[in-house]
């Protein structure tokens, strides 16, 4: 008898629990759907408002303020003819090369400058000095020094992306918990083992934050570099649109840049979650 009642109680409890969980799950789902619906509504409203501008204000020149339908009509042939994919590929290659270069150099510089007191003090003012100069202002200088070739653009992107990585690595390595270092030393770790097995993993969260920031910066610098002189790339497409008074092409460029920036950021977040699941926030 006693066994029976306890079994019945257990099933009852399980039922209650599942019902409760189901209810919560459903509520959460409803909230999610509601939010997604509102998101969609917002985008639709925005597009609708934009589309209706020429109707509401007939004095506005549609060439200067093209509606979404017009932009899409230009977008589709450019996409199918391969013009847009080619430009995207060129831009992404430039940004990625510069970014990778900056990653390697920035982490190396950060580790090197933060590992000893002497180098830390020697380089700190230079670091802050360089950092306060906007990279965009270096574009004309780099055009004079390196020309307008592929190398100059990659160098510019690398320069812009370098400083956030350097600073983040510098702070991360400088502030590694002293206990970690002492424990490693007690266990007989050499300088190389300490560096790669203790210091870098401990500084990783900050380094990742720096990488994420400099990814956004490399896209910005890339745009500046391509606007100043290029024969291909998304921003080149935009500056062509400017010269031809094709505001619709410029809008397509903006749209592509926004999408690229957003996609890369998401990709980076996803990758860090995948690779370092223990650093989630």
């Amino acid at each position: 008898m006693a066994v029976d009642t306890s079994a019945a109680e257990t099933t009852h409890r399980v039922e209650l629990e599942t019902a409760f969980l189901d209810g919560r799950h459903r509520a959460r789902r409803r909230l999610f759907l509601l939010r997604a619906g509102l998101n969609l509504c917002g985008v639709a409203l925005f597009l609708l408002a934009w589309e209706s501008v020429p109707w509401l204000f007939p004095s506005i020149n549609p060439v200067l303020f093209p509606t979404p339908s017009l932009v899409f009509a230009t977008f589709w042939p450019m996409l199918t003819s391969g013009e847009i994919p080619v430009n995207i590929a060129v831009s992404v290659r430039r940004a990625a090369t510069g970014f990778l270069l900056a990653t390697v150099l920035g982490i190396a510089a950060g580790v090197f400058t933060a590992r000893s007191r002497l180098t830390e003090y020697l380089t700190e003012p230079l670091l802050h000095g360089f950092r306060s100069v906007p990279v965009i202002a270096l574009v004309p200088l780099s055009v004079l020094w390196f020309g307008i070739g592929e190398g100059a653009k990659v160098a510019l992107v690398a320069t812009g992306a370098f400083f956030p990585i350097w600073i983040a690595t510098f702070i991360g390595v400088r502030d590694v918990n002293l206990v970690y270092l002492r424990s490693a030393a007690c266990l007989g770790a050499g300088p190389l083992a300490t560096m790669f097995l203790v210091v870098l993993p401990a500084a990783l969260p900050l380094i990742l934050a720096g990488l994420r920031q400099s990814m956004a910066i490399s896209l910005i610098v890339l745009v500046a570099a391509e606007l100043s002189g290029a024969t291909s790339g998304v921003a080149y497409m935009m500056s062509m649109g400017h010269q031809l008074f094709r505001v619709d092409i410029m809008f397509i460029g903006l749209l592509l840049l926004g999408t690229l920036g957003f996609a890369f950021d998401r990709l980076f977040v996803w990758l860090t979650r995948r690779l370092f699941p223990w650093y989630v926030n």
Partner: protein
Amino acid sequence: MAAEKHDVPPAAVNANLTEREKLEIESSFRNEIVATRHRRLRRGLMFNLIGVLIFLAVWEVLPRIVPGVNIQMFPPPSGVIATLYGMLADGQLAAHAWSSLKRVAAGFVIGSSAGILVGLFTGRLALLQSMSDPVLHGLRSIPAIAFVPLAIVWFGLGETPKIALISWGTFFPVWISTFIGVRDVPKLYVQSALSLGAGPLNVMFRVVLPAAMPFVFAGLRHATAVAFVIVVAAELVGASSGLGYLISFSHLVFRIDMMFVGLLALGVLGFLADAAFAALLQRLFPWYRAERS
């Protein structure tokens, strides 16, 4: 046996000292700490200075000794300083800096007030937030530099496109941090205010906004840096004054020393603006310690 001798508890030692001796020990100990700290600070500053000097020396010497380097293309610091002095003396640099600063200030005020307003409303009203989120985040991920050609097509070459661009660029960091600050205001504050009979406006401006202030100021500080980047981008393309114009003009006339002066001025202005902001923050809101550094 020997170990036991050392085992005199510290209280017993203290008991043998007079009050005055205790004070003396304490003050000498404190003096020692202060002196060590000063010494360390001085040494740090000295190394800072040495680092800068090494950098300047290498830059001064390198263009002269490396064969095949055109000194016009890599002007050494002495040349840059001579140019800087000339431009300071005839007021040219101050004029350019002033017109850049005016643009930055105007754009910053417009963009950040819009950012705070939109942040307040999107942070308080869930409906508005859900509807505006994708559009605002979509616009935010477009680099502001990419709007420069569009701004020229729309607004021409005068002051308007530059101020519009700076407002656009400063809006997003201010909006997003205000939004986060407003969203994370402790519910308890709002509920207390409501139960004390505060209306929605009172809650918004006397409870939520002050509670979100640290975040707002973090956003504003970020926005000053953004404003200095965008003013350069805007002036590089079409302007007749300003530091960005100075740089692009020197580019056209191959005066790299003048470009360096422009870069230097930009760096100094950006640094000073940030420092002034931090000082102002400390002055106005000394209780927000986290935002100081």
